[in-house]
């Protein structure tokens, strides 16, 4: 149970960075931290006590493997989610580069003030 609570705390640190901070790079860092917390949540749901990785090694029967390995479905979904997170970070970074070229600052207050 304490693992779930720690993940929720990490998620809310990311939400705080997204909402309260005025720097665009800090907001991107908040998005990144939210992605970490969600991936960790999915992996923790699929864990078994004393479980082995879902890879069949030689010298192990199928029944023993099925009864001991961790849940492979959340791992496969998280594998997709991590790569999509990277593409989101790339897009946000290029947006912030473009904003810096136009306004000369990463600060949201100055960007708002320059708008006519």
């Amino acid at each position, binding site marked *: 149970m304490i693992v*779930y609570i720690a993940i929720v705390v990490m998620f809310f*640190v990311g939400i705080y960075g997204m909402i309260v901070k005025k*720097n665009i*790079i800090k907001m991107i*860092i908040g998005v990144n931290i939210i992605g970490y917390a969600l991936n960790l949540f999915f992996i923790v749901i699929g864990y078994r006590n004393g479980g082995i990785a879902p890879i*069949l090694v030689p010298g192990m029967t199928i029944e023993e493997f099925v009864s001991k390995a961790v849940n492979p479905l959340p791992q496969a979904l998280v594998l997709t989610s991590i790569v999509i997170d990277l593409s989101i970070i790339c897009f946000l970074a*290029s947006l912030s580069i473009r904003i810096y070229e136009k306004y000369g600052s990463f600060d949201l207050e100055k960007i708002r003030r320059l708008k006519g």
Partner: protein
Amino acid sequence: MVINTGFHIFLLLMMIIGSIIAIFSKKLISSLVSLGTVGMLLSIYFLILSAPDIAITQLVVEILALIILLSAITGRDVTADMTSSKVYALFFIFIFLISIFTFVSSFYFIFPEFGNSNMRVGEKYLYLAPTKLKVANVVTAIVLDFRGYDTIGEATVIFTAIIGVMVLLRKKGKKDE
């Protein structure tokens, strides 16, 4: 391999401290470096939770994201002072925190306890992948065979993101203002 719960709590605590430093640090470069630390600790924790494929992918993606964000801020004005957060934002965050802890206590009845996974579909995949498909690694069997349409969707999303980045960062064909 059995790991006691103290080590889990230690790793999670280090991750929370690293993310708090990444949000509240005054300089952008130090906050990016502590974000990289959080990613590395997450990779170690995936390895402990017996997910080696995820650990490798997380390590590579973390380093790539760090390089991209560092190249976005190098040569630019990183010493610009961050305007301090407003007080009512803190108040809203406090309310959010209380509501989410009530959510967690209601999750207690829905989600399984840590270490007791619900294996309804997972057991099927674990049994079918070595016998029917003759694949030893079940995770790659799910990604490439059982749920191949999800992988096509992932490729579409990445393609769209690359097109967006190319449109945003092009130099040619832009009108001078």
